[in-house]
């Protein structure tokens, strides 16, 4: 086994059984995976495809029916591997009667961290996830987005080498999603390995280095995101400042080379970018309607 392999699964299978031990669902079938040091690895698939099962097996929350999961070089059911792991579950399953500080302090105590380091880290993390203003409120008063943030802080309390994120962006507003993605990228920059699963394709595409696509418990595709998404037989050109004649000329050139022109149009921005720019604008100039210039809605922007 290469030394930079952080997670390895060998023919990992999981069959859920009913009370009498009869097989009910084959949730995962002979999965072979390797997650390497320092990458962001995405597990992708529709609901019920075995993503969460894989993560639970890797964390030792479930026991495999057959096969083996090795996490940080140790069997997944061994407790000692947890020293270097952070885990953000599907929904942040935290104690609702604790406040943010108490939550992080409690989880921090489960690790072998000196008290002063722990206290300092609790404060840093609360600030980093932007909950400084609500750190004394019980989690039951938190909104979903706030719970996600404290959940992520909880997963980072031990400064782990491997962070496992189960649907990290669900329930977050677009700003939250952006921030979550930035945080994940920052973790990568800090040399951490991230394993995440999601069915939100855009998120995975944005941040993952490598992905595995699961369907009905079986691995369907595995590889680098940029390789997988490259469409070899098409060429995309983006240019600015071309007039009508120039565009016609390009069409002619394509026709001359027996190419097929698929589209040539003014691009639209993504809704995410639009939304983010509106919110930023509104924060910069509070109390005014946002004046994001958009060529298609000149009449409406006059009221701004």
């Amino acid at each position, binding site marked *: 086994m290469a030394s930079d392999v952080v997670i390895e699964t060998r023919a990992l299978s999981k069959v859920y059984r009913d009370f009498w031990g009869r097989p009910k669902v084959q949730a995962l079938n002979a999965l072979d995976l390797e997650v390497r040091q320092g990458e962001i690895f995405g597990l992708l698939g529709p609901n019920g495809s075995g993503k969460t099962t894989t993560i639970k097996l890797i964390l030792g*929350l479930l*026991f495999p029916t057959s096969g083996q999961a090795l996490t940080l070089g140790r069997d997944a059911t061994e*407790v000692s591997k*947890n020293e270097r792991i952070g885990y953000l579950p599907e929904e942040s399953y935290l*104690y609702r009667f604790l406040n943010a500080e108490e939550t992080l302090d*409690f989880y921090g105590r*489960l690790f072998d961290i000196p008290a002063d380091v722990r206290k300092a880290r609790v404060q840093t993390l609360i600030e980093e996830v932007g909950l400084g203003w609500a750190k004394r409120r019980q989690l039951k008063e938190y909104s979903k987005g706030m719970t996600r943030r404290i959940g992520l802080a909880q997963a980072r309390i031990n400064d782990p080498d491997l962070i496992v994120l189960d649907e990290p962006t669900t329930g977050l507003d677009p700003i939250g999603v952006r921030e979550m993605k930035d945080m994940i990228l920052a973790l990568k920059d800090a040399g951490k390995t991230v394993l995440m699963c999601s069915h939100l394709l855009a998120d995975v595409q944005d941040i993952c280095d490598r992905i595995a696509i699961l369907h009905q418990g079986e691995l369907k595709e595995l590889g680098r995101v940029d390789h997988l998404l490259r469409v070899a037989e098409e060429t995309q050109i983006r240019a600015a400042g071309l007039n009508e004649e120039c565009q016609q000329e390009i069409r002619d050139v394509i026709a001359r080379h027996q190419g097929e022109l698929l589209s040539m149009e003014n691009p639209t921005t993504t809704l995410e970018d639009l939304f983010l720019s509106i919110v930023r604008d509104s924060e910069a100039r509070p109390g005014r309607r946002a004046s994001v210039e958009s060529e298609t809605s000149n009449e409406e922007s006059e009221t701004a």
Partner: protein
Amino acid sequence: MVIETDLLTFFEWLLVGGSDRLPAVLQFLLTAGSLILLALVIGFLAAMVRHGPLVAGDLTYGVVRNAIGELFVLSPRRIWAMARLAIQESLRRRVLVVLAVFVVVLLFAGWFLDNQTHEPVKLYVSFVMTAATYLTLLLAIFLSAFSLPNDFKNRTIYTIVTKPVRSGEIVLGRILGFSAIGTVLLAIMGLASYVFVVRAVSHRHTIVAEENLTSLAINHRHTVQIGPDGAKQTSTEMGHWHPIDSQEKNTEAPQELFRARVPHYGKLRFKGPTGADKARGISVGNEWGYRSYIEGGTEAAAVWTFTGVTADKFPDGLPVELNIRVFRTYKGNIEKGILGSIFLRNPKTGLRSDIETFEARDFHIDSRFLPRKLPRLRKDQQDAGDSEMVDLFDDLVDDQGRVEVWIQCLPRAQYFGAAQADCYLQATDDRFDWNFMKGYLGIWTQMLLVTAFGVMFSTFLSGPVALAATTGALVIGFFADFTTSVATGELEGGGPIESLIRLVTQKNVTSELEQNVATAIVQSIDAVLMIVMQSVTHVLPDFRSFSNVAWVAHGFSIPTDLVCQNLVAALAYVFGVFVGGYFFLRIREVAK
């Protein structure tokens, strides 16, 4: 105070054992060993069904190897973190409301506690302690049985077990946390109930001079008399008396009301009606064979032999307390007790004192003081021509410090019932408040046990089922005697299913069932069930034996040996339950 089995000293109990029981250490090792063996076999078989023998062996070995690593390398820091969580959880679930309930119970206790009682201390003490026991145990069951299942339900357990926490630490942390809450609650309840009892029962009278009587308080009055030191004092009523203040208008606070007697017990044997030695007296038909009876007007006697009677311990004479039960074959004067006689006898020389008479009443402790100089038996006097008196230590106590107390019943056809604990030398009193605290310590051990069992059951059962299981363990524990006698077939009426059939068909417990195939099947199922019952009762703690309420209520100091035995036994149970909880949690799939 009923003491059915002789109390062993702590070390005898731990290492030597009694006549019908093994030493505690051996008992623990045997039980623990057989349970571990059973668990391994069951675990192996279950794994074999699913994975075949080789993998099963591997898995079993893995579990055992892990266990040895994880059970004994516990981190105090993590246990404390888990315990703190349990405490915070309890506090935020507002358990302190229980204190308010307890205070309300105390506030209104005066309404429903019998004010006609002759033993107010007994009534109040047993009331407050029982109330505290039920409240605390109920709370302990609910807290412990629902906590872990809630973690599973809310999946908060996911974030715990993906941290480097060992299953044992989760279990132990929970037990410690909830016990800490229980401890605080019990401490507050103990203090509140102590104040309540003392204030409710303490009383003063005013002197009604012309009648030489005191006023009525808590349903009694005293007469005024001259005490042994020459000062005026009241008579002893309901086990206590009052000094009278200098103005002779009011009494002072009651004396000897709150007691914690430290009895010096002897060994009991019997003499039959002809004076022959007997192991037991006559049965008067009571099902409870605790006391046996001696016939009046015959040579029959109950004889207690006390050892270690020295002049240092009892310088002025023997303070004997008697709690003789009376069985009347004719009514006689029901207002009066039955006359009995008491004398002392030297077990070696056979020299005895003359009889003294007393009136035996049911449920009444008769305190007698036998002074150092006692009248010699008249017959002996004539024979020996000696002095009229015998000396306690020179004549009646033999060179090994032994002396016999003989009790006989005087009227013909009346009977005295006696058990070993019914006659004792009352040398000293312990502090009542200290004894009260020891009583609460008994409740504390029960709370600890219930908490531990609740947590253990909740590692593999859902909340309500864990609650039921813990309650079941508690009930079986409280009725351990009964369950054992059903399980051993000592009780008429067969096993559980046979009893059910008898109930439904309204058959007498002693009549034989019809011998046919159905009966045979039922009885063989019962035989298996009875073995299971016997093992279960053998393993579960006998909760009643951890309760010391009766001692405090009856005014007896709880022996330190008993306190130590209970504490050690409880800790042994907690340890066993902790190991069990560890295994159940470790082999369980946390996620679904």
